[in-house]
């Protein structure tokens, strides 16, 4: 019986994969996607340049991209696991990326069809990232640190208040009207005040980002708690659960799906507040870097920071997504 459960779980996993990665494995598309990236390489290497740019880093990037594609396609060809479903599904998308890279390279670096210095080539941005690597790395770490602290503070506060308001009518009666009025205020509106109220700009930034997070989380947590079927509370009582155990083992897990909806909503707001508050108050971070680059008129640096933000925020999103999938694996896969 042990093995039948395992088999069933593997089947469920495979089902889920087939639903998420539904494009069929096609060697034609795989080859085509590698060819488009290779073509982007050739185009960049062969067509004469109008920008002053060191194309080395772009070539490294394209080389790594091609190597990555070839590796996953070979693995996909010989195995039948996740790599095959994933890489096969995205082969067509990868082809489009190759074509887009060629187009952007032609209209910027090669023919300068768009106004410099506001539109620069991807190769130029990569070169900038390489030049500013140390500063950008420090800025990224600083932004990540600030974001993580603020997001955790805001989320914990939101979950805590939401649990109390969802579970205890008295608390809800007294707190919710006030919190609703406060929570609806955009965090950015507090900015001028936070600058003078908080002793350090770091604290002001934490406040602003956490402020953008707590309300959506609290709001969704309340709904999540109130949506838990009363059967679970009654079962818990007949099994000897104390109030604290009910909160820990029924209320929190039961509200978790909703809490995550709140967390994902809050995430976008928190990224916005992160960048804005760094632009205004900070002496470090990607937001500060953009503001500083704007000051000296180096728009390539602005693009560099934007590219890194895209990467950083995508990674954060993916990590929280994974955490959610892990914590909510008890949910019916069909839902």
């Amino acid at each position, binding site marked *: 019986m042990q093995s039948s459960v395992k088999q069933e779980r593997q089947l469920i996993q495979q089902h889920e994969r087939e639903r998420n990665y539904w494009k069929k494995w096609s060697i034609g598309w795989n080859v085509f996607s590698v060819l488009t990236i290779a073509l982007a390489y050739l185009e960049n290497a062969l067509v004469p340049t109008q920008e002053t740019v060191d194309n080395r880093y772009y070539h490294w990037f394209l080389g790594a991209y091609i190597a990555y594609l070839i590796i996953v396609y070979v693995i996909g060809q010989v195995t039948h696991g996740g790599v095959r479903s994933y890489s096969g599904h995205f082969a067509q998308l990868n082809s489009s990326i190759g074509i887009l890279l060629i187009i952007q390279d032609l209209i910027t670096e090669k023919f300068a069809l768009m106004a410099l210095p506001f539109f620069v080539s991807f190769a130029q941005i990569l070169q900038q990232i390489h030049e500013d690597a140390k500063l950008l790395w420090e800025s990224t770490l600083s932004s990540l640190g600030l974001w993580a602290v603020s997001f955790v503070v805001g989320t914990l506060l939101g979950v805590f208040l939401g649990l109390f308001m969802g579970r205890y009518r008295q608390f809800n009666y007294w707190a919710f009207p006030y919190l609703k009025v406060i929570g609806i205020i955009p965090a950015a509106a507090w900015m001028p005040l936070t600058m003078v109220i908080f002793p350090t700009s770091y604290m002001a930034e934490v406040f602003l980002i956490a402020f953008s997070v707590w309300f959506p989380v609290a709001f969704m947590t309340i709904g999540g708690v109130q949506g838990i079927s009363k059967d*679970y509370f*009654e*079962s818990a009582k007949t*099994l000897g659960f104390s109030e604290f155990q009910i909160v820990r083992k029924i209320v929190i897990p039961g509200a978790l799906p909703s809490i995550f909806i709140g967390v994902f909503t809050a995430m976008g707001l928190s990224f916005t507040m992160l960048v804005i508050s760094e632009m205004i108050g900070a002496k470090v971070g990607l937001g500060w870097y953009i503001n500083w680059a704007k000051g000296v008129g180096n728009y390539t640096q602005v693009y560099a920071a934007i590219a890194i933000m895209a990467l950083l925020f995508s990674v954060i999103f993916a990590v929280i997504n994974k955490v959610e999938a892990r914590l909510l694996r008890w949910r019916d896969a069909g839902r």
Partner: protein
Amino acid sequence: MSLLEVKAVNRILTDNNGQRVPVLNNINFDVEPGEFVSLIGPSGCGKTTLLRLISGLDQPESGTVKVNDKLVTKPDVSRGYVFQHGSLFPWFSIRDNISAGLRVTQGRHFDQALVDQYIDLMGLKGFESAFPHQVSGGMAQRAALARSIIMHPELLLLDEPMGALDAFTRADIQNVIYRVWQQTKTTMILVTHDIDEAVYLSNRIIVMTPRPGQIKEIVTNPLPYPRQRTSDEFLKFRQQIQDKLNFGAKDQVAAS
């Protein structure tokens, strides 16, 4: 002294139109330790309402429910309750569901061997780490039974635990309940609208009338255990109960 004493219990509920409707009317009965009693009656006659009063989940408008001569005022581990749809905690594995009560009452070092024993007894071996949505309805219901029985309640209240199952699975769970009752001598009260089930399992059958729910008759089951569902005596006694239920509400009873 009886284990359970239900005296002059009335329950009045407010319906959707704000009308106060009597749901239970002057309910009186006792249950002795070790007994298996079935509550049978048409749908909506107040069986669940009565069971909830006994568990302490609700309070009667008047009358008393006493267990061991003590007034029941709130739910307690000593009175297990198996809900109609099991209501396993979906976020716990089957094993964690079964051990939930032990974990919260005995702490981290609860009796793991006991959990294994009940997993075996309920035929859930191999599914310990599955989540409730991954197992069949019959398995979920067996896990729900195990979750309550493992707490060794002095009184186990079963609210149509087989109601949502197909005929084969239902017979299977009836046998599980019978086995557990024989082994543990736990006092059980089973709500059902399935006459076969009541006759197969119980010492006594409490027949209820439709709204407002009243006790029509308490019938002692003369058949010795283990019972044969196809024996003449079984069928005869079954017919007797059927007749008592058929007072102008034939179709409601046949729902099972």
